[in-house]
């Protein structure tokens, strides 16, 4: 094997903050090299040094043995370095073929476009990664995983030898992850070196050859993946043992708080959904991406009101046709992507915290700023939100802390039912454990929690009961004791009809 990329003693500081301290890193041809570390450990900065977005203060970069001086994005691309980020960066209104062509075809505003050639290249590249996507489809019609494949195809078209994948699996279901891994293995076989960043530690043994951990901008170490286990990785990343990865507390379950019977919504493709959730219970909602889990929560929150079945809140039938009504009834919803609408980035921590409870901190519409600050300060302390002050815009906080603010907002509303959609997606290990601990505390205080997650260990670790969805309806329910990864997957894939405990 030959060394594709070699970083030596990279230092980088931003306005006095040392982001990287003497980090060295190597990537072989045909290797998947995982890069792990908590948020803020320096992974993104390292990636940006490789792609030429940041110039290192010290240290050298070598690509296939040649030292690279004055790296910049254009040079990096010409050297065969490509990066694929968690959110695909494609043009939604253009077709797959056009997206792949961008940046690959020579420039010049007056150059005639050879449509046939463009289409043939797209077909060839998509075939190379085994993607069954029509080149003339508009990208906005593709699913997230499909868009990712298009990005990979584009990177290959640019003759990428070094492919950086930043959290590619974060929003994928298990089946899509399998498909992604198949593509990665094919790229490996073609001699491409892949830097793979992921917070999902359990998937690394399946795909990575080596792993490098960063902590606070320093290199902790590089090891063969076969020689480390999950515990070792966590120790490397956080420098301490996490007491328990899923601090599940056993809580006495109370009465049924929310029950749905035959719930359906044609517009969002869910039908005949039955389940209930009790006070003090965490109900895991599992299933593949697209199985209708998020859609069900949007129905419950009045975003896409139900057109069939009934919703019972503490035994009483209710109609939820607006989000305002849902909030009134004591239902809280923390959406999947906090960057999209979970928090308002330009507003302060304090303002965000009280946004769902403006009624409670005001009298006759008049805001009580002292009360607002007290509430915000209390939640910042209780949830351990790391922020300079409560007047800091939420946009300045790290992902995990933004998620905590999104949670604080709803806890301030003192809801009866809390719906969490992928509560720890893209959040680092430390913050993840804190959010899990918090969920346990909330359940202990009698809250009914519905948690949607694509991570099976999280579902298994946190849920008292698990409802598995498939193709827009409930495929089955499992008790905590009887639940295994295999049982959930079988239901999620639709292999097994209604079974297990009643939902």
């Amino acid at each position, binding site marked *: 094997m030959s060394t594709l990329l070699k970083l030596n003693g990279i230092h980088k500081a931003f306005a006095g903050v040392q982001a990287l301290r003497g980090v060295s890193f190597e990537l072989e041809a045909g290797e998947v090299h995982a890069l792990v570390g908590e948020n803020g450990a320096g992974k993104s900065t390292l990636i940006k040094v490789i792609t030429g977005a940041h110039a290192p203060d010290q240290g050298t970069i070598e690509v296939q043995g040649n030292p690279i001086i004055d790296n910049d994005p254009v040079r990096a691309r010409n050297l065969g370095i490509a990066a694929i980020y968690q959110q695909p960066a494609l043009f939604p209104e253009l077709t797959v073929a056009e997206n792949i062509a961008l940046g690959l075809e020579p420039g010049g505003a007056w150059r005639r476009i050879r449509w046939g050639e463009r289409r043939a290249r797209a077909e060839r590249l998509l075939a190379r990664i085994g993607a069954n996507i029509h080149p003339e489809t508009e990208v906005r019609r593709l699913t997230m995983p499909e868009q990712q494949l298009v990005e990979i195809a584009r990177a290959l078209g640019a003759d990428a030898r070094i492919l950086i994948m930043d959290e590619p699996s974060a929003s994928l279901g298990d089946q899509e992850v399998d498909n992604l891994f198949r593509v990665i293995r094919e790229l490996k076989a073609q001699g491409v070196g892949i830097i793979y960043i992921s917070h999902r530690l359990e998937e690394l043994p399946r795909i990575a050859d080596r792993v490098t951990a960063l902590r606070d901008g320093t290199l902790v170490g590089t090891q063969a993946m076969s020689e480390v286990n999950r515990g070792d990785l966590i120790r490397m990343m956080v420098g301490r043992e996490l007491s328990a990865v899923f601090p599940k507390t056993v809580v006495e379950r109370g009465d049924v708080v929310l029950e749905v019977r035959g719930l359906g919504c044609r517009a969002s493709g869910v039908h005949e959904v039955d389940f209930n959730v009790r006070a003090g219970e965490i109900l895991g909602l599992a299933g593949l991406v697209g199985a209708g889990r998020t859609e069900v929560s949007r129905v419950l*929150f009045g*975003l896409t009101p139900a057109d069939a079945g009934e919703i019972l809140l503490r035994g009483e039938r209710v109609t939820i046709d*607006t*989000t*305002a009504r*849902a*909030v*009134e009834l004591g239902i809280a*919803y923390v*959406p999947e992507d906090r960057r*999209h*609408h*979970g*928090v*308002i*980035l*330009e*507003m*302060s921590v304090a*303002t965000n915290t009280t*946004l*769902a409870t*403006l*009624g409670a901190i*005001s009298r006759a*519409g*008049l*805001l009580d700023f002292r009360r607002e600050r007290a509430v915000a300060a209390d939640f910042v302390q209780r949830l351990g939100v790391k922020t300079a*002050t409560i*007047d*800091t815009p939420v946009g300045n906080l790290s992902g995990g802390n933004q998620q905590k603010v999104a949670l604080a*907002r709803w806890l301030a509303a003192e809801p009866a039912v809390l719906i969490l959609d992928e509560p720890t997606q893209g959040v680092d290990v430390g913050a993840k454990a804190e959010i899990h601990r918090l969920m346990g505390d909330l359940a202990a205080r009698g809250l009914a929690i519905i948690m949607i997650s694509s991570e099976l260990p999280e579902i298994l670790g946190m849920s008292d009961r698990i409802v598995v969805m498939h193709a827009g309806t409930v495929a089955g329910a499992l008790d905590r004791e009887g639940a295994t990864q295999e049982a959930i997957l079988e239901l999620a894939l639709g292999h097994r009809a209604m079974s297990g405990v009643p939902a």
Partner: protein
Amino acid sequence: MNAVAKYRRELSVALAYALFLLLLAVAAPRFYKPEQLRSFIVSNSSVLVAAIGMTLVILCRQIDLSVGSQFSICGVVAGLLAKTGLPLPVVGLGTLLVGGGLGAINGALIAFLGLPSIVVTLATLVILRESLRYAREGSFVRDIPQGFQWFGAGQGSGQWLVVAVALVVFLIFLWSLRNLSAGRSVYATGSDPEAARLVGIRPRRVVFLVFVAMGALAGLGALLNAVRFADVDPNSGVGLEMQVIAAVVVGGTAISGGRGTLFGTLVGVALLGSIGPALVFLGTQPQWEKAIQGTIILLAVASDALGREGK
């Protein structure tokens, strides 16, 4: 964050304006003659009231191009109502209702049908203007009873009544935007309508009500403008949208919504309103007024963009 950092944008415009005033004090001291200052303040009162409405609209990530046509119609309506001999409070209320109604049409189309505000208000700008032209054939409303001009108080105290009304309305909205939960709903809607919806705010309703307020404030502004004259000009609002939108933007309100204060709008109105008289007293061609206003807008948004880069 302290107050200086929080109102940095507003303070820097205020500082620029102060420098401008200082320059005028040296170059054109006649600008400061009491009579001239008084007329400057009185004539800009109606602009300020309309600009308050525009601030709300822009904070909600919307725009209202039809404000000038609303203003013209409301001025004529005020004159016609006064002509029927109705008491002044009824005339005022009627004008506000007509303005609010015109705003409600914009608001309903934008909020409930989801049409883009720039297109809707461009259409209503023309429709309202041409309807008024058809109805009035360009003629002034004349022979209005004595009690209408200067609210029947005579120019001496009447003009201060105009300023006082504008100032009270300004203070009410300034206070409300900050202290009422309704004000915060406006900011939340403008920052991220979807996020606002997820916390139980009804963004459509907020947008609708903001357009109603815009219309009513345009009506009030028109009334404050109409009482300054014996007759009502049916073209009193032509071109007002430029002045009002410019004042809001120069005052630091982000055109993308969610950020800005009425304090900034006040400075913006004063700054843009000073250009015309300043040119006169500097002995320059007053035709340059619009071009200079345009330049100030570009400078303001460019300095915003550069300020953000520097962060």
